[in-house]
């Protein structure tokens, strides 16, 4: 019932803001040959998982790339992005990515895809992209510390998508004045849609009114999981000498994720603006959990909301974010208790993960940003406060 | 006494007229005949019961007495000279039920130790559809069919309620139980002595399904199929010759495993006994083809 409400709400939002505004984006080239490099490096005084143990949030089935941050200094994330333009309207993009954990750095050739766009009358742009790429339907499904105001991913992104939704797929989108509509099809290499398929649709609207800029978007994804597992701590992606105690839980079933995002900015001066952002999302899982030789039915309803506020003045930027999750699970069957107790689904305290992040960023130059963060969270049995100091480097080579 | 052993036949009218009226292509009618097939158990020429002194047994010509002598039989089929088959429908009685018959030659209680008489069964009773004068052979299988072999023995009805034929540790029945006490006992490899040389035939290597509680399969079914020629079924009987069964075994000394043969593939006594029944054991495929224990003879 709750799911239905949120879905209707999302649909309503798209329809309610139907007015046309000229989009600048339609006129900039889709592809420009060149190399972009981003790098985020931070020091943390605490980690949110004990060294050599697994990071699990009670009530959630984690996986994908949702690794905990490390105590001490380390590379959050580095991205090397190469684009080659055959023309302003078509080309390829290749992305390599590195991140570290438990004192090791790993590098992966993350994305490679082809994109093409056509312009038609009324400045309408039709775009097709295909290849291995990150999903574009939701801001929660694609996180890189070097490109985000925050050095840590959202809890919702970590729990719903395993930090990032990356897969082989096809994306089609239409840019129609202030509107962007799109749909994506995925073939089952991501964590969420393990061995299954996924499809999503999204729409967002950008507009302005006097000194106000605003955007509103809604998105929905359906994904199938076939024996989805948490392989963060074994298999091809192990950091350090983590003691593998991971259960061999497998989830097979349907996933539905919906969300709306809204942002409102008030340009208060030449070099200053104030903004608030809101993200609401809901993640539903319905399927079977198999753990060793037992099975139970799982129905999950996870809801997340993220509220943000920011203030920017020249090179200074203050951003605050509050995240809250509600993780509701029902396990059915004679093995329900055993499976629950043996896995991270058990949530005897009814924990609702919460996190508040306060970030100050100093944009020294287009190539360098300094970042200071203070984080207060309760995502496991105990509360934690930690602080982070780091920098982001950007380089563009044409 | 002679008459009692005689194969008795009686004709029962079935539906020959009806069949003819249907105008089917089959010629002639089918008669259903009740039939009794006597079974006699001997050791060489001695007819087996609790009081009989059996002689000339096995490779060391032992003498001895039975302690138990019973076997289950099913799938009895009479074979016609034209190659057609006439399945025998076993009558329902204390010794026969649901197609399984128990033949039992032990005529005293308490493994023959008692003076009290115990009932025996030395006949197969049933009916066949067909002309008995055409019968040129008989075929039957020893044992309890797989579908009935692993039921709840505690709840079973006669003749499957015999506790001395429960083979609980193999979750089934003993198909044949021929226990004989040779004079002088059986010397075991460890120099101790046992009273009886036992032959217990049954399915082995069974595994169960713990979720259903059912036995799912047995690696060795051990149900020998016996096929014999018949010339005059109305005047013939089946013969079980125990001496043939243990012809190549020494009853006075056991080489290991269970004393005698309890169907254990590694039991040194089992190979020869199984061979006599026309079966292989433990990959040893019936070295001397055919069985030697069962025969058909004409009643004098």
């Amino acid at each position, binding site marked *: 019932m709750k799911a239905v409400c949120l879905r209707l709400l999302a649909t309503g939002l798209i329809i309610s803001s139907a*007015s046309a505004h000229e989009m600048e984006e339609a006129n900039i080239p889709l592809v420009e040959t060149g190399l972009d490099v981003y790098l985020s490096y931070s020091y943390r005084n605490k980690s949110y998982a004990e060294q050599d143990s697994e990071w699990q949030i009670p009530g959630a089935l984690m996986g994908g790339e949702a690794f905990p941050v490390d105590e001490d200094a380390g590379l959050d994330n580095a991205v090397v992005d190469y684009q080659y333009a055959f023309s302003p309207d078509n080309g390829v993009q290749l992305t390599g990515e590195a991140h570290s954990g438990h004192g090791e750095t790993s590098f992966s050739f993350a994305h490679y895809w082809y994109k093409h766009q056509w312009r038609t009358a009324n400045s309408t742009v039709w775009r097709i992209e295909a290849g291995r790429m990150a999903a574009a339907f939701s801001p929660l499904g694609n996180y890189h510390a070097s490109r985000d105001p925050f050095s840590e991913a959202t809890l919702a992104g970590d729990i719903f998508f395993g930090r990032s939704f990356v897969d082989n797929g096809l994306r089609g989108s239409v840019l129609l004045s202030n509107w962007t509509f799109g749909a994506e099809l995925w073939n089952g290499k991501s964590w969420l849609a393990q061995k299954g398929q996924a499809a999503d649709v999204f729409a967002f609207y950008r507009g302005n009114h006097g000194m106000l800029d605003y955007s509103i978007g809604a998105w929905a994804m359906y994904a199938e999981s076939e024996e989805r597992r948490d392989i963060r701590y074994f298999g091809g992606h192990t950091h350090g000498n983590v003691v593998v105690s991971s259960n061999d839980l497998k989830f097979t079933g349907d996933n539905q994720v919906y969300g709306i995002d809204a942002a409102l900015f008030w340009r208060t001066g030449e070099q200053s603006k104030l903004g608030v952002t809101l993200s609401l999302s809901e993640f539903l899982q319905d399927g079977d959990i198999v753990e060793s030789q037992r099975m139970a039915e799982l129905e999950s309803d996870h809801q997340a909301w993220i509220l943000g506020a920011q203030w920017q003045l020249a090179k200074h930027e203050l951003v605050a974010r509050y995240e809250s999750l509600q993780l509701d699970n029902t396990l*059915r069957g004679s093995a329900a208790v055993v499976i629950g107790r043996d896995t991270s689904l058990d*949530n005897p305290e009814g924990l609702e993960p919460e996190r508040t992040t306060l970030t100050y960023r100093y944009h020294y130059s287009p190539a360098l940003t300094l970042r200071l963060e203070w984080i207060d969270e309760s995502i496991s049995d105990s509360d934690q406060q930690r602080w982070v100091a780091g920098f982001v480097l950007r380089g563009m080579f044409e | 006494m002679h008459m009692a052993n005689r194969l008795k036949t009686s004709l029962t009218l079935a539906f020959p007229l009806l069949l003819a009226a249907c105008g089917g292509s089959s010629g002639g009618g089918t008669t259903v005949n009740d039939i009794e097939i006597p079974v006699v158990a001997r050791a060489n020429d001695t007819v087996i019961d609790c009081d009989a002194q059996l002689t000339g047994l096995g490779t060391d010509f032992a003498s001895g007495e039975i302690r138990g002598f019973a076997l289950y039989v099913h799938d009895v089929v009479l074979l016609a000279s034209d190659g057609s088959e006439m399945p025998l429908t076993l009558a329902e009685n204390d010794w026969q039920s649901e197609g399984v018959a128990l033949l039992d030659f032990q005529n005293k209680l308490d493994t023959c130790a008692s003076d009290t008489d115990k009932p025996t069964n030395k006949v197969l009773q049933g009916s066949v559809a067909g002309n008995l004068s055409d019968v040129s052979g008989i075929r039957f299988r020893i044992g309890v069919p797989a579908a009935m072999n692993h039921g709840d023995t505690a709840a079973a009805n006669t003749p499957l309620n015999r506790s001395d034929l429960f083979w609980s*540790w193999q979750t089934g029945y003993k198909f044949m139980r021929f226990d004989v006490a040779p004079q002088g006992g059986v010397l075991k490899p460890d120099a101790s002595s046992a009273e009886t040389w036992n032959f217990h035939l049954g399915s082995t290597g069974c595994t169960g399904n713990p979720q259903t509680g059912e036995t799912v399969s047995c690696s060795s079914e051990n149900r020998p199929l016996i096929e014999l020629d018949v010339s005059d079924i109305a005047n013939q009987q089946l013969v079980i010759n125990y001496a043939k069964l243990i012809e190549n075994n020494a009853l006075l000394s056991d080489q290991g495993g269970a004393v005698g043969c309890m169907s254990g*593939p590694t039991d040194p006594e089992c190979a020869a006994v199984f061979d006599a029944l026309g079966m292989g054991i433990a990959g040893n495929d019936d070295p001397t083809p055919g069985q030697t224990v069962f025969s058909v003879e004409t009643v004098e």
Partner: protein
Amino acid sequence: MRFHIIRVASAALFSFSLLACNGGSETRYLTGDEAARTFSWNIPQRVPLPIVPEDNPVNEASFQLGRHLFYDLRLSGNGSQACASCHKQNMAFAESLERSVGSTGELHPRNAQSLVNIAFNPTLTWANPSLVTIEQQIMIPLFGEFPVEQGITEENKAAVLATIAEDSTYQELFAAAIPGATSETINFENIVKALATFVRGINSFGSDFDRFEDGESGVLTDAALRGRELFFSENLECFHCHGGYNFTDSTADSSQLFVDTPFHNTGLYNIDGAGAYPEISQGIIEITSKPSDMGRFRAPTLRNIAVTAPYMHDGSMATLEEVIRTYAAGGRNITNGPYAGDGRANPFRDGFVTGFEISDDQIQDLIAFLESLTDYDLLSSPRFANPWEE
């Protein structure tokens, strides 16, 4: 344009309220076995119920009938032996003899096992992949001839039944346990079913270890806690064969997708250098006849292990320390006597029995942990005690 913003803002506010008023985080368990749990199983909610044969559902009347039969010497050929003669409550329903003795004095090839939690056994006895229900197993002690245990035979079974049928206590118990009971009802089918229900009801999850796992503090000694770490370590590998809530990999319950029936050769013997165990008891090879099944036995539960000495299928080890030292050595090397041979070199030895380093102090810690698996309530609980002495 203004009203757009208002609509967006109000929608956002509405969304907040939507999220704010839902129930919050919870993981709830709907096992659907509430009806089945009304029987006094002595099994906590966190443990799934055992598999119960459809034709013998549990109920209290059947349990009580079974309890009377379990303790009744008259349920034997010569009136000298009951189930309880070899399965004593104060020893967690095992006994102190190395090998049991039947009603006619015959020595059994094997040590009497604890009956606690055997409702969770996928296979019964020490080594028999064909025995998958307690009902099937009970026929062996009642009617078995090789060896004779309770010694009921074709000749005396009518007399045994008559003795039971004449007892007015049983007449009441049978009438309560079996709907529509008649004089015909007092038969071995119902005796076996009631015995099975009693044994199926002897469950133990009330040890100090269980209290520790349930979050109670101060229930395990420091030594037991150190022993626990050792037990679950990859170095000792204990939990590979003695894992799970019943401390054996040979565990079946109603929640499993499939049930495994594991057996292990632990290198106790190697008489001929080719892996042979003493002929009297060789493991599931006796059933399967597969040469590689030599010496393979079921791993028993370790619950209440401290009170079930002696150990192993033939009772050939007197103490837990001896058992641990044998596993530390990777098997047993017998240097003289008829069973001489180096079990450590048994070709069929299980891959997890490879030996480990352990200090004397650690052995004592491990024993302290094993002692924490004893459920003292069970050993004296009136629920499982001899009803004829009440």
